[in-house]
Protein backbone atom coordinates (compact mmCIF):
# COMPACT_ATOMS: atom_id res chain seq x y z
CA UNK A 1 0.00 0.00 0.00
CA UNK A 2 1.25 3.44 -0.83
CA UNK A 3 2.04 5.90 1.92
CA UNK A 4 -0.85 8.16 1.05
CA UNK A 5 -3.17 5.16 0.92
CA UNK A 6 -2.15 4.32 4.44
CA UNK A 7 -2.87 7.88 5.42
CA UNK A 8 -6.37 7.74 3.93
CA UNK A 9 -7.00 4.37 5.53
CA UNK A 10 -5.84 5.74 8.85
CA UNK A 11 -8.19 8.68 8.64
CA UNK A 12 -11.06 6.41 7.67
CA UNK A 13 -10.74 4.72 11.05
CA UNK A 14 -11.91 7.96 12.66
CA UNK A 15 -15.33 7.32 11.27
CA UNK A 16 -16.04 4.30 13.43
CA UNK A 17 -18.65 6.03 15.57
CA UNK A 18 -22.19 5.09 16.38
CA UNK A 19 -24.92 7.36 15.06
CA UNK A 20 -26.14 9.94 17.54
CA UNK A 21 -29.42 9.45 19.34
CA UNK A 22 -31.18 6.35 20.52
CA UNK A 23 -31.61 3.53 18.01
CA UNK A 24 -35.09 3.19 16.57
CA UNK A 25 -34.53 -0.43 15.65
CA UNK A 26 -37.65 -2.36 16.54
CA UNK A 27 -36.99 -6.07 17.02
CA UNK A 28 -40.58 -7.21 17.62
CA UNK A 29 -41.37 -5.29 14.44
CA UNK A 30 -38.57 -7.12 12.62
CA UNK A 31 -39.96 -10.46 13.74
CA UNK A 32 -43.45 -9.52 12.61
CA UNK A 33 -42.24 -8.25 9.29
CA UNK A 34 -40.15 -11.38 8.71
CA UNK A 35 -43.16 -13.55 9.34
CA UNK A 36 -45.27 -11.50 6.99
CA UNK A 37 -42.62 -11.75 4.29
CA UNK A 38 -42.54 -15.49 4.45
CA UNK A 39 -46.03 -15.29 3.14
CA UNK A 40 -45.33 -12.63 0.61
CA UNK A 41 -42.06 -13.79 -0.74
CA UNK A 42 -43.09 -12.89 -4.18
CA UNK A 43 -42.50 -9.27 -3.35
CA UNK A 44 -39.40 -9.86 -1.30
CA UNK A 45 -37.69 -12.18 -3.72
CA UNK A 46 -38.30 -10.41 -6.96
CA UNK A 47 -38.94 -6.92 -5.70
CA UNK A 48 -41.80 -7.33 -7.90
CA UNK A 49 -45.25 -7.58 -8.80
CA UNK A 50 -48.31 -9.40 -9.69
CA UNK A 51 -48.60 -9.98 -13.29
CA UNK A 52 -49.64 -11.38 -16.48
CA UNK A 53 -52.65 -13.19 -17.58
CA UNK A 54 -53.06 -14.90 -20.90
CA UNK A 55 -53.81 -13.69 -24.39
CA UNK A 56 -56.69 -15.92 -25.23
CA UNK A 57 -60.32 -15.14 -24.73
CA UNK A 58 -61.35 -15.56 -21.14
CA UNK A 59 -63.01 -18.85 -20.33
CA UNK A 60 -65.73 -19.37 -17.80
CA UNK A 61 -64.20 -20.54 -14.62
CA UNK A 62 -65.43 -22.75 -11.81
CA UNK A 63 -63.75 -22.34 -8.49
CA UNK A 64 -64.65 -25.60 -6.86
CA UNK A 65 -65.98 -27.48 -9.78
CA UNK A 66 -69.49 -26.20 -9.31
CA UNK A 67 -69.63 -25.11 -12.92
CA UNK A 68 -70.53 -21.55 -12.05
CA UNK A 69 -69.01 -19.08 -14.45
CA UNK A 70 -67.14 -16.09 -13.09
CA UNK A 71 -68.89 -12.98 -14.33
CA UNK A 72 -66.77 -10.29 -15.83
CA UNK A 73 -67.22 -6.93 -14.14
CA UNK A 74 -69.69 -4.81 -15.99
CA UNK A 75 -67.13 -2.09 -16.42
CA UNK A 76 -64.71 -4.48 -18.05
CA UNK A 77 -65.37 -5.02 -21.74
CA UNK A 78 -65.42 -8.58 -22.94
CA UNK A 79 -61.83 -9.19 -24.03
CA UNK A 80 -62.86 -11.62 -26.73
CA UNK A 81 -64.43 -8.83 -28.76
CA UNK A 82 -61.60 -6.36 -28.34
CA UNK A 83 -59.43 -6.15 -31.40
CA UNK A 84 -55.80 -6.10 -30.37
CA UNK A 85 -53.50 -3.23 -31.27
CA UNK A 86 -51.91 -3.70 -34.68
CA UNK A 87 -48.62 -5.42 -34.20
CA UNK A 88 -45.81 -6.41 -36.49
CA UNK A 89 -46.39 -9.93 -37.74
CA UNK A 90 -43.82 -12.66 -38.15
CA UNK A 91 -41.29 -14.32 -35.92
CA UNK A 92 -40.02 -12.47 -32.87
CA UNK A 93 -36.65 -11.05 -33.87
CA UNK A 94 -35.62 -9.54 -30.56
CA UNK A 95 -35.09 -6.09 -32.05
CA UNK A 96 -36.47 -3.67 -29.47
CA UNK A 97 -36.61 0.03 -28.79
CA UNK A 98 -37.22 1.83 -25.52
CA UNK A 99 -39.31 4.89 -24.74
CA UNK A 100 -39.89 6.67 -21.45
CA UNK A 101 -43.51 6.74 -20.38
CA UNK A 102 -45.07 10.10 -19.56
CA UNK A 103 -45.28 11.02 -15.86
CA UNK A 104 -46.85 14.29 -14.71
CA UNK A 105 -44.66 16.29 -12.32
CA UNK A 106 -41.85 14.43 -10.60
CA UNK A 107 -40.73 11.99 -13.26
CA UNK A 108 -39.51 9.28 -10.89
CA UNK A 109 -41.79 6.29 -11.22
CA UNK A 110 -41.81 2.65 -12.20
CA UNK A 111 -44.05 0.22 -14.06
CA UNK A 112 -45.37 -2.54 -11.80
CA UNK A 113 -47.51 -4.64 -14.14
CA UNK A 114 -49.37 -4.68 -17.43
CA UNK A 115 -52.13 -6.48 -19.28
CA UNK A 116 -51.47 -9.35 -21.73
CA UNK A 117 -51.73 -7.02 -24.72
CA UNK A 118 -49.33 -4.46 -23.31
CA UNK A 119 -51.95 -1.79 -23.85
CA UNK A 120 -52.44 -1.07 -20.15
CA UNK A 121 -49.57 -0.56 -17.73
CA UNK A 122 -49.85 0.24 -14.05
CA UNK A 123 -47.14 1.65 -11.85
CA UNK A 124 -46.31 3.93 -9.02
CA UNK A 125 -44.45 7.12 -8.28
CA UNK A 126 -41.54 7.68 -5.94
CA UNK A 127 -42.85 7.76 -2.40
CA UNK A 128 -43.50 10.99 -0.55
CA UNK A 129 -44.96 12.07 2.78
CA UNK A 130 -43.89 11.10 6.24
CA UNK A 131 -41.52 8.17 6.22
CA UNK A 132 -41.84 8.17 2.43
CA UNK A 133 -44.67 5.65 2.61
CA UNK A 134 -47.13 7.39 0.33
CA UNK A 135 -47.17 6.13 -3.25
CA UNK A 136 -49.15 7.81 -6.02
CA UNK A 137 -50.46 5.32 -8.59
CA UNK A 138 -50.22 5.69 -12.35
CA UNK A 139 -52.21 3.95 -15.07
CA UNK A 140 -51.06 4.23 -18.68
CA UNK A 141 -53.26 3.35 -21.61
CA UNK A 142 -50.98 3.61 -24.60
CA UNK A 143 -49.37 7.02 -24.20
CA UNK A 144 -52.09 8.47 -21.98
CA UNK A 145 -51.46 8.51 -18.26
CA UNK A 146 -53.92 8.81 -15.40
CA UNK A 147 -53.07 9.47 -11.77
CA UNK A 148 -54.90 7.54 -9.07
CA UNK A 149 -54.82 8.01 -5.32
CA UNK A 150 -55.46 4.98 -3.17
CA UNK A 151 -56.30 5.56 0.50
CA UNK A 152 -53.76 4.64 3.19
CA UNK A 153 -50.03 4.16 2.73
CA UNK A 154 -47.72 1.72 0.95
CA UNK A 155 -50.21 1.76 -1.93
CA UNK A 156 -49.53 -0.50 -4.86
CA UNK A 157 -51.53 -1.56 -7.88
CA UNK A 158 -50.35 -5.07 -8.61
CA UNK A 159 -52.07 -6.10 -11.83
CA UNK A 160 -54.34 -4.93 -14.65
CA UNK A 161 -56.42 -6.89 -17.17
CA UNK A 162 -57.28 -6.29 -20.82
CA UNK A 163 -60.39 -4.37 -19.79
CA UNK A 164 -58.23 -1.90 -17.85
CA UNK A 165 -59.40 -3.18 -14.45
CA UNK A 166 -56.50 -2.72 -12.02
CA UNK A 167 -56.23 -4.27 -8.55
CA UNK A 168 -53.96 -3.69 -5.59
CA UNK A 169 -53.78 -2.93 -1.92
CA UNK A 170 -52.65 -0.44 0.68
CA UNK A 171 -52.00 -0.29 4.40
CA UNK A 172 -54.68 1.41 6.40
CA UNK A 173 -54.27 2.98 9.81
CA UNK A 174 -54.29 0.42 12.54
CA UNK A 175 -56.50 -2.09 10.82
CA UNK A 176 -54.09 -3.83 8.47
CA UNK A 177 -54.46 -3.75 4.71
CA UNK A 178 -57.25 -3.14 2.21
CA UNK A 179 -57.82 -4.49 -1.27
CA UNK A 180 -58.77 -2.11 -4.08
CA UNK A 181 -59.93 -2.20 -7.66
CA UNK A 182 -59.59 0.73 -10.03
CA UNK A 183 -61.54 1.13 -13.24
CA UNK A 184 -61.79 4.21 -15.40
CA UNK A 185 -60.20 6.25 -12.61
CA UNK A 186 -62.73 5.12 -10.01
CA UNK A 187 -61.37 3.48 -6.87
CA UNK A 188 -63.55 0.74 -5.36
CA UNK A 189 -62.79 -1.08 -2.12
CA UNK A 190 -63.11 -4.82 -2.63
CA UNK A 191 -65.60 -6.48 -0.30
CA UNK A 192 -63.64 -7.98 2.57
CA UNK A 193 -64.55 -9.49 5.91
CA UNK A 194 -61.18 -8.86 7.50
CA UNK A 195 -58.17 -7.00 6.16
CA UNK A 196 -56.39 -8.28 3.09
CA UNK A 197 -55.12 -7.41 -0.34
CA UNK A 198 -55.54 -8.13 -4.05
CA UNK A 199 -52.56 -9.37 -6.02
CA UNK A 200 -53.85 -10.26 -9.50
CA UNK A 201 -56.80 -10.12 -11.89
CA UNK A 202 -57.56 -12.01 -15.09
CA UNK A 203 -59.59 -11.02 -18.13
CA UNK A 204 -62.74 -12.60 -16.74
CA UNK A 205 -62.46 -10.15 -13.86
CA UNK A 206 -61.57 -12.82 -11.32
CA UNK A 207 -59.40 -11.30 -8.61
CA UNK A 208 -57.13 -13.19 -6.21
CA UNK A 209 -55.21 -12.19 -3.12
CA UNK A 210 -55.26 -12.85 0.59
CA UNK A 211 -57.08 -12.10 3.77
CA UNK A 212 -55.51 -11.78 7.16
CA UNK A 213 -56.65 -14.57 9.43
CA UNK A 214 -56.37 -12.85 12.79
CA UNK A 215 -56.30 -9.17 13.76
CA UNK A 216 -52.79 -8.00 14.62
CA UNK A 217 -51.16 -11.01 12.98
CA UNK A 218 -50.56 -9.85 9.41
CA UNK A 219 -48.22 -12.75 8.75
CA UNK A 220 -51.10 -15.22 9.00
CA UNK A 221 -52.85 -15.11 5.64
CA UNK A 222 -55.24 -17.20 3.61
CA UNK A 223 -55.58 -17.16 -0.17
CA UNK A 224 -58.89 -15.81 -1.39
CA UNK A 225 -60.63 -15.15 -4.73
CA UNK A 226 -63.29 -12.68 -5.76
CA UNK A 227 -65.49 -13.62 -8.72
CA UNK A 228 -65.65 -9.95 -9.57
CA UNK A 229 -64.81 -6.71 -7.85
CA UNK A 230 -68.33 -6.60 -6.48
CA UNK A 231 -68.35 -10.14 -5.08
CA UNK A 232 -67.57 -11.27 -1.57
CA UNK A 233 -64.22 -13.06 -1.39
CA UNK A 234 -64.21 -16.84 -1.14
CA UNK A 235 -61.55 -18.74 0.82
CA UNK A 236 -59.69 -21.14 -1.43
CA UNK A 237 -59.56 -24.68 0.02
CA UNK A 238 -56.26 -25.30 1.80
CA UNK A 239 -53.85 -28.15 0.97
CA UNK A 240 -53.85 -29.02 4.67
CA UNK A 241 -55.34 -27.67 7.84
CA UNK A 242 -52.34 -25.64 8.94
CA UNK A 243 -51.34 -24.16 5.60
CA UNK A 244 -51.31 -20.41 5.17
CA UNK A 245 -50.19 -17.94 2.54
CA UNK A 246 -51.39 -15.74 -0.28
CA UNK A 247 -52.58 -16.15 -3.85
CA UNK A 248 -50.10 -14.42 -6.16
CA UNK A 249 -51.61 -14.82 -9.63
CA UNK A 250 -54.54 -16.08 -11.66
CA UNK A 251 -54.24 -17.48 -15.19
CA UNK A 252 -56.70 -16.70 -17.96
CA UNK A 253 -58.35 -20.11 -17.54
CA UNK A 254 -58.90 -19.39 -13.85
CA UNK A 255 -55.98 -21.41 -12.47
CA UNK A 256 -54.92 -19.76 -9.22
CA UNK A 257 -51.32 -19.77 -8.00
CA UNK A 258 -50.39 -19.20 -4.35
CA UNK A 259 -47.27 -18.98 -2.22
CA UNK A 260 -47.92 -20.99 0.93
CA UNK A 261 -46.26 -22.93 3.68
CA UNK A 262 -47.29 -25.68 5.99
CA UNK A 263 -48.18 -24.05 9.30
CA UNK A 264 -44.98 -23.19 11.07
CA UNK A 265 -43.32 -19.97 9.94
CA UNK A 266 -40.10 -21.91 9.47
CA UNK A 267 -41.50 -24.22 6.85
CA UNK A 268 -40.34 -23.36 3.34
CA UNK A 269 -42.56 -21.55 0.87
CA UNK A 270 -44.12 -23.73 -1.81
CA UNK A 271 -46.20 -23.16 -4.91
CA UNK A 272 -49.84 -24.24 -4.66
CA UNK A 273 -52.25 -24.28 -7.63
CA UNK A 274 -56.01 -24.60 -7.90
CA UNK A 275 -56.98 -25.73 -11.38
CA UNK A 276 -60.44 -24.86 -12.67
CA UNK A 277 -62.90 -27.54 -11.72
CA UNK A 278 -60.48 -29.43 -9.47
CA UNK A 279 -61.79 -30.25 -6.01
CA UNK A 280 -58.46 -29.87 -4.26
CA UNK A 281 -55.34 -27.71 -4.55
CA UNK A 282 -52.03 -29.21 -5.61
CA UNK A 283 -48.72 -28.47 -3.94
CA UNK A 284 -46.16 -28.38 -6.76
CA UNK A 285 -43.06 -30.52 -6.22
CA UNK A 286 -39.85 -28.65 -5.40
CA UNK A 287 -37.80 -28.27 -8.57
CA UNK A 288 -34.33 -29.73 -9.02
CA UNK A 289 -31.60 -27.11 -9.22
CA UNK A 290 -27.79 -27.43 -9.49
CA UNK A 291 -26.66 -29.37 -6.43
CA UNK A 292 -29.94 -31.19 -5.83
CA UNK A 293 -33.51 -30.49 -4.88
CA UNK A 294 -34.46 -26.90 -4.06
CA UNK A 295 -35.37 -26.28 -0.44
CA UNK A 296 -37.92 -23.63 -1.24
CA UNK A 297 -39.76 -22.24 -4.26
CA UNK A 298 -41.28 -18.77 -4.40
CA UNK A 299 -43.84 -18.72 -7.20
CA UNK A 300 -44.12 -15.40 -9.01
CA UNK A 301 -46.58 -15.84 -11.86
CA UNK A 302 -48.78 -18.16 -13.86
CA UNK A 303 -49.55 -17.43 -17.52
CA UNK A 304 -50.58 -19.80 -20.28
CA UNK A 305 -50.10 -22.75 -17.95
CA UNK A 306 -46.51 -21.77 -17.16
CA UNK A 307 -45.59 -21.13 -13.55
CA UNK A 308 -42.41 -19.13 -13.02
CA UNK A 309 -40.65 -18.36 -9.80
CA UNK A 310 -37.45 -18.46 -7.83
CA UNK A 311 -35.98 -21.58 -6.27
CA UNK A 312 -33.44 -21.54 -3.47
CA UNK A 313 -31.28 -24.28 -2.13
CA UNK A 314 -29.73 -24.06 1.32
CA UNK A 315 -25.96 -23.92 1.20
CA UNK A 316 -23.16 -23.53 3.70
CA UNK A 317 -21.37 -20.99 1.53
CA UNK A 318 -23.55 -17.96 1.03
CA UNK A 319 -23.15 -16.12 -2.27
CA UNK A 320 -23.18 -12.40 -2.83
CA UNK A 321 -26.96 -12.31 -2.97
CA UNK A 322 -27.66 -14.73 -0.19
CA UNK A 323 -28.52 -18.32 -0.99
CA UNK A 324 -28.05 -19.51 -4.55
CA UNK A 325 -31.18 -18.57 -6.45
CA UNK A 326 -32.51 -19.97 -9.68
CA UNK A 327 -35.20 -18.84 -12.07
CA UNK A 328 -37.47 -21.83 -12.61
CA UNK A 329 -40.30 -22.43 -15.06
CA UNK A 330 -42.82 -25.21 -14.51
CA UNK A 331 -45.16 -26.44 -17.24
CA UNK A 332 -48.46 -27.18 -15.50
CA UNK A 333 -49.52 -29.47 -18.37
CA UNK A 334 -46.61 -31.89 -17.87
CA UNK A 335 -45.24 -30.95 -14.46
CA UNK A 336 -41.82 -30.53 -16.02
CA UNK A 337 -39.62 -27.95 -14.24
CA UNK A 338 -36.56 -26.33 -15.77
CA UNK A 339 -33.97 -23.87 -14.55
CA UNK A 340 -33.68 -20.86 -16.84
CA UNK A 341 -30.09 -19.73 -17.12
CA UNK A 342 -28.70 -16.20 -17.00
CA UNK A 343 -31.59 -14.65 -15.11
CA UNK A 344 -30.64 -12.61 -12.08
CA UNK A 345 -34.14 -11.60 -11.02
CA UNK A 346 -37.31 -13.22 -12.21
CA UNK A 347 -39.48 -10.42 -13.47
CA UNK A 348 -42.49 -11.58 -15.44
CA UNK A 349 -43.43 -14.32 -17.87
CA UNK A 350 -45.91 -14.21 -20.72
CA UNK A 351 -48.45 -16.72 -21.99
CA UNK A 352 -45.87 -18.41 -24.20
CA UNK A 353 -43.63 -19.19 -21.25
CA UNK A 354 -41.14 -16.51 -22.21
CA UNK A 355 -39.45 -14.81 -19.30
CA UNK A 356 -38.38 -11.21 -18.86
CA UNK A 357 -36.51 -9.78 -15.93
CA UNK A 358 -33.04 -8.73 -14.98
CA UNK A 359 -29.98 -10.32 -16.48
CA UNK A 360 -26.45 -10.18 -15.11
CA UNK A 361 -25.15 -6.67 -14.61
CA UNK A 362 -28.71 -5.65 -13.65
CA UNK A 363 -29.53 -5.18 -17.32
CA UNK A 364 -33.20 -5.64 -18.22
CA UNK A 365 -33.70 -8.46 -20.67
CA UNK A 366 -35.71 -11.30 -22.13
CA UNK A 367 -35.06 -15.05 -22.05
CA UNK A 368 -36.57 -17.14 -24.81
CA UNK A 369 -35.37 -20.72 -24.72
CA UNK A 370 -31.60 -20.65 -24.69
CA UNK A 371 -31.53 -17.12 -26.08
CA UNK A 372 -31.22 -13.99 -23.96
CA UNK A 373 -31.78 -10.50 -25.34
CA UNK A 374 -30.71 -7.35 -23.50
CA UNK A 375 -33.22 -4.53 -23.73
CA UNK A 376 -31.96 -1.11 -24.83
CA UNK A 377 -32.15 2.35 -23.26
CA UNK A 378 -34.00 5.20 -24.99
CA UNK A 379 -32.14 7.71 -27.12
CA UNK A 380 -30.50 10.31 -24.94
CA UNK A 381 -30.50 8.12 -21.82
CA UNK A 382 -27.47 8.88 -19.70
CA UNK A 383 -25.95 6.50 -17.23
CA UNK A 384 -26.11 2.77 -16.82
CA UNK A 385 -28.39 0.34 -18.58
CA UNK A 386 -29.86 -1.00 -15.35
CA UNK A 387 -33.44 -1.87 -14.75
CA UNK A 388 -36.02 -4.57 -14.79
CA UNK A 389 -39.09 -5.77 -16.64
CA UNK A 390 -42.46 -6.19 -14.96
CA UNK A 391 -44.86 -6.51 -17.87
CA UNK A 392 -44.54 -8.76 -20.92
CA UNK A 393 -47.26 -9.02 -23.54
CA UNK A 394 -48.24 -12.46 -24.78
CA UNK A 395 -47.01 -11.76 -28.29
CA UNK A 396 -43.66 -10.64 -26.87
CA UNK A 397 -43.91 -7.25 -28.59
CA UNK A 398 -44.57 -4.92 -25.65
CA UNK A 399 -42.70 -4.87 -22.34
CA UNK A 400 -42.99 -2.52 -19.39
CA UNK A 401 -40.50 -1.86 -16.67
CA UNK A 402 -38.05 0.68 -15.46
CA UNK A 403 -34.57 2.01 -15.98
CA UNK A 404 -32.42 3.27 -13.16
CA UNK A 405 -29.54 5.66 -13.12
CA UNK A 406 -28.07 7.26 -10.02
CA UNK A 407 -31.03 8.83 -8.22
CA UNK A 408 -33.33 8.43 -11.20
CA UNK A 409 -35.86 5.79 -11.98
CA UNK A 410 -38.08 6.14 -15.00
CA UNK A 411 -40.95 4.01 -16.30
CA UNK A 412 -40.17 2.49 -19.66
CA UNK A 413 -42.00 0.71 -22.45
CA UNK A 414 -40.10 -1.44 -24.88
CA UNK A 415 -41.59 -2.42 -28.21
CA UNK A 416 -40.01 -5.29 -30.09
CA UNK A 417 -40.31 -6.88 -33.47
Amino acid at each position, binding site marked *: *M*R*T*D*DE*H*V*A*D*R*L*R*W*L*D*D*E*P*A*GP*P*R*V*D*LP*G*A*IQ*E*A*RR*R*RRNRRVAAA*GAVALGVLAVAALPVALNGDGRAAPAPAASPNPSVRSPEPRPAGAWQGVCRAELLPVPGDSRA*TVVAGDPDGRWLVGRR*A*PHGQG*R*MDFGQLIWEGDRVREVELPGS*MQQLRDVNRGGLAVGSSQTDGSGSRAWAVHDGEVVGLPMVTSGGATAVNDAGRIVGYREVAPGKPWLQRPVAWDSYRSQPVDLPLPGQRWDGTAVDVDSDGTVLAAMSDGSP*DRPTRAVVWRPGAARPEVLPLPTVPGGKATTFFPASVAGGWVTGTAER*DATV*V*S*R*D*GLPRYAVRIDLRTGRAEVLPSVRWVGVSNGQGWLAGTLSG*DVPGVIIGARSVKLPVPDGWRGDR*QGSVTSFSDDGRVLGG*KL*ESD*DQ*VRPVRWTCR
Partner: protein
Amino acid sequence: MPDASDQEYVEYVTARLPALRRLAYALCGDTDQADDLVQETATRLYLRWARIGEVGRLDAYVRAVLVRHFLDTRRRGWWRVHLFGGPPDVRSTEDRGAEERTVLRDALAKVPPRQRAVLVLRFLHDLPVDEVARTLGCSAGTVKSQTSHGLAAMRRLLGDRELAGRAGEER
Protein backbone atom coordinates in the same frame (compact mmCIF):
# COMPACT_ATOMS: atom_id res chain seq x y z
CA MET B 1 -45.99 -15.80 19.51
CA PRO B 2 -42.57 -15.43 21.20
CA ASP B 3 -40.75 -18.67 21.93
CA ALA B 4 -37.28 -19.66 23.18
CA SER B 5 -35.79 -19.21 19.75
CA ASP B 6 -37.25 -15.72 19.50
CA GLN B 7 -35.72 -14.85 22.83
CA GLU B 8 -32.28 -15.97 21.69
CA TYR B 9 -32.73 -13.92 18.56
CA VAL B 10 -33.67 -10.80 20.50
CA GLU B 11 -30.75 -11.26 22.89
CA TYR B 12 -28.29 -11.76 20.09
CA VAL B 13 -29.42 -8.78 18.02
CA THR B 14 -29.63 -6.52 21.07
CA ALA B 15 -26.04 -7.34 21.96
CA ARG B 16 -24.89 -6.73 18.40
CA LEU B 17 -26.91 -3.54 17.93
CA PRO B 18 -24.15 -0.97 18.61
CA ALA B 19 -21.73 -2.71 16.25
CA LEU B 20 -24.34 -3.08 13.54
CA ARG B 21 -25.34 0.57 13.81
CA ARG B 22 -21.70 1.64 13.59
CA LEU B 23 -21.21 -0.42 10.46
CA ALA B 24 -24.46 0.83 8.92
CA TYR B 25 -23.65 4.44 9.76
CA ALA B 26 -20.18 4.14 8.25
CA LEU B 27 -21.68 2.74 5.07
CA CYS B 28 -24.50 5.19 4.51
CA GLY B 29 -23.50 8.23 6.57
CA ASP B 30 -27.02 8.91 7.73
CA THR B 31 -28.56 8.10 11.11
CA ASP B 32 -32.05 7.33 9.87
CA GLN B 33 -30.90 5.21 7.00
CA ALA B 34 -28.45 3.41 9.29
CA ASP B 35 -31.33 2.37 11.52
CA ASP B 36 -33.36 1.33 8.47
CA LEU B 37 -30.44 -0.82 7.36
CA VAL B 38 -30.18 -2.46 10.76
CA GLN B 39 -33.93 -2.95 10.92
CA GLU B 40 -33.94 -4.71 7.57
CA THR B 41 -30.91 -6.77 8.55
CA ALA B 42 -32.68 -7.87 11.73
CA THR B 43 -35.74 -8.85 9.69
CA ARG B 44 -33.69 -10.90 7.24
CA LEU B 45 -31.77 -12.50 10.06
CA TYR B 46 -35.02 -13.62 11.68
CA LEU B 47 -36.11 -15.23 8.44
CA ARG B 48 -33.06 -17.49 8.62
CA TRP B 49 -32.69 -17.68 12.38
CA ALA B 50 -33.92 -21.23 12.84
CA ARG B 51 -31.41 -22.47 10.30
CA ILE B 52 -28.35 -20.69 11.60
CA GLY B 53 -26.52 -23.04 13.91
CA GLU B 54 -22.90 -22.06 14.36
CA VAL B 55 -22.64 -18.88 16.38
CA GLY B 56 -19.00 -18.54 15.34
CA ARG B 57 -20.10 -17.73 11.83
CA LEU B 58 -23.08 -15.71 12.90
CA ASP B 59 -21.36 -12.33 13.26
CA ALA B 60 -19.84 -12.65 9.82
CA TYR B 61 -23.16 -13.76 8.40
CA VAL B 62 -25.05 -10.80 9.88
CA ARG B 63 -22.39 -8.42 8.67
CA ALA B 64 -22.69 -9.87 5.18
CA VAL B 65 -26.47 -9.49 5.27
CA LEU B 66 -26.15 -5.84 6.27
CA VAL B 67 -23.46 -4.95 3.73
CA ARG B 68 -25.21 -6.72 0.88
CA HIS B 69 -28.47 -5.10 1.75
CA PHE B 70 -26.71 -1.74 1.77
CA LEU B 71 -25.34 -2.46 -1.71
CA ASP B 72 -28.76 -3.62 -2.87
CA THR B 73 -30.38 -0.42 -1.72
CA ARG B 74 -27.77 1.64 -3.46
CA ARG B 75 -28.38 -0.27 -6.64
CA ARG B 76 -32.13 -0.43 -6.42
CA GLY B 77 -33.37 2.45 -4.32
CA TRP B 78 -36.90 2.91 -3.06
CA TRP B 79 -38.60 1.23 -5.97
CA ARG B 80 -37.42 -2.11 -4.66
CA VAL B 81 -36.85 -1.39 -1.00
CA HIS B 82 -39.40 0.96 0.42
CA LEU B 83 -37.47 1.84 3.55
CA PHE B 84 -35.20 4.17 1.66
CA GLY B 85 -35.91 7.49 0.15
CA GLY B 86 -33.62 9.94 -1.52
CA PRO B 87 -29.86 10.08 -1.75
CA PRO B 88 -27.91 9.93 1.50
CA ASP B 89 -27.55 13.24 3.26
CA VAL B 90 -24.34 13.65 5.13
CA ARG B 91 -24.69 14.93 8.64
CA SER B 92 -22.03 16.21 10.91
CA THR B 93 -21.14 14.64 14.19
CA GLU B 94 -20.96 17.04 17.08
CA ASP B 95 -17.94 15.89 19.00
CA ARG B 96 -14.27 16.69 18.67
CA GLY B 97 -12.93 16.55 15.15
CA ALA B 98 -16.45 17.05 13.88
CA GLU B 99 -15.41 19.05 10.88
CA GLU B 100 -12.79 16.55 9.85
CA ARG B 101 -15.23 13.72 10.18
CA THR B 102 -17.84 15.56 8.19
CA VAL B 103 -15.37 16.05 5.38
CA LEU B 104 -14.37 12.41 5.55
CA ARG B 105 -17.92 11.13 5.70
CA ASP B 106 -18.90 13.38 2.85
CA ALA B 107 -16.06 12.02 0.75
CA LEU B 108 -16.82 8.43 1.69
CA ALA B 109 -20.46 8.91 0.70
CA LYS B 110 -19.31 9.84 -2.79
CA VAL B 111 -17.23 6.72 -3.28
CA PRO B 112 -19.14 4.10 -5.28
CA PRO B 113 -21.03 1.83 -2.87
CA ARG B 114 -19.06 -1.35 -3.49
CA GLN B 115 -15.72 0.38 -3.06
CA ARG B 116 -17.12 2.13 0.00
CA ALA B 117 -18.13 -1.20 1.51
CA VAL B 118 -14.64 -2.57 0.91
CA LEU B 119 -13.03 0.47 2.56
CA VAL B 120 -15.35 0.34 5.56
CA LEU B 121 -14.89 -3.38 6.12
CA ARG B 122 -11.13 -3.32 5.68
CA PHE B 123 -10.20 -0.14 7.49
CA LEU B 124 -13.01 0.55 9.94
CA HIS B 125 -13.67 -3.04 10.82
CA ASP B 126 -10.15 -4.28 10.21
CA LEU B 127 -11.29 -7.37 8.35
CA PRO B 128 -8.71 -9.28 6.33
CA VAL B 129 -9.04 -9.34 2.55
CA ASP B 130 -10.35 -12.91 2.52
CA GLU B 131 -13.08 -12.10 5.03
CA VAL B 132 -14.14 -9.03 3.06
CA ALA B 133 -14.23 -11.20 -0.07
CA ARG B 134 -16.51 -13.69 1.69
CA THR B 135 -18.72 -10.90 2.98
CA LEU B 136 -19.16 -9.40 -0.46
CA GLY B 137 -19.19 -12.70 -2.29
CA CYS B 138 -16.33 -11.84 -4.59
CA SER B 139 -12.68 -12.83 -5.06
CA ALA B 140 -9.78 -11.57 -2.96
CA GLY B 141 -8.38 -10.01 -6.12
CA THR B 142 -11.55 -7.99 -6.57
CA VAL B 143 -11.34 -6.78 -2.98
CA LYS B 144 -7.77 -5.62 -3.57
CA SER B 145 -8.60 -3.78 -6.76
CA GLN B 146 -11.72 -2.23 -5.19
CA THR B 147 -9.61 -1.12 -2.23
CA SER B 148 -7.16 0.52 -4.53
CA HIS B 149 -9.89 2.26 -6.55
CA GLY B 150 -11.71 3.29 -3.38
CA LEU B 151 -8.62 4.80 -1.82
CA ALA B 152 -7.82 6.60 -5.05
CA ALA B 153 -11.35 8.00 -5.08
CA MET B 154 -10.98 9.14 -1.46
CA ARG B 155 -7.72 10.85 -2.26
CA ARG B 156 -9.35 12.65 -5.15
CA LEU B 157 -12.41 13.61 -3.16
CA LEU B 158 -10.60 14.80 -0.09
CA GLY B 159 -8.65 17.17 -2.26
CA ASP B 160 -6.31 17.62 0.65
CA ARG B 161 -3.27 19.54 -0.53
CA GLU B 162 -0.92 17.18 1.17
CA LEU B 163 -2.58 14.10 -0.26
CA ALA B 164 -3.07 15.59 -3.69
CA GLY B 165 0.59 16.47 -3.76
CA ARG B 166 1.61 12.96 -2.91
CA ALA B 167 -0.77 11.43 -5.37
CA GLY B 168 0.54 13.83 -7.98
CA GLU B 169 4.10 12.74 -7.43
CA GLU B 170 3.27 9.22 -8.38
CA ARG B 171 1.50 10.04 -11.59
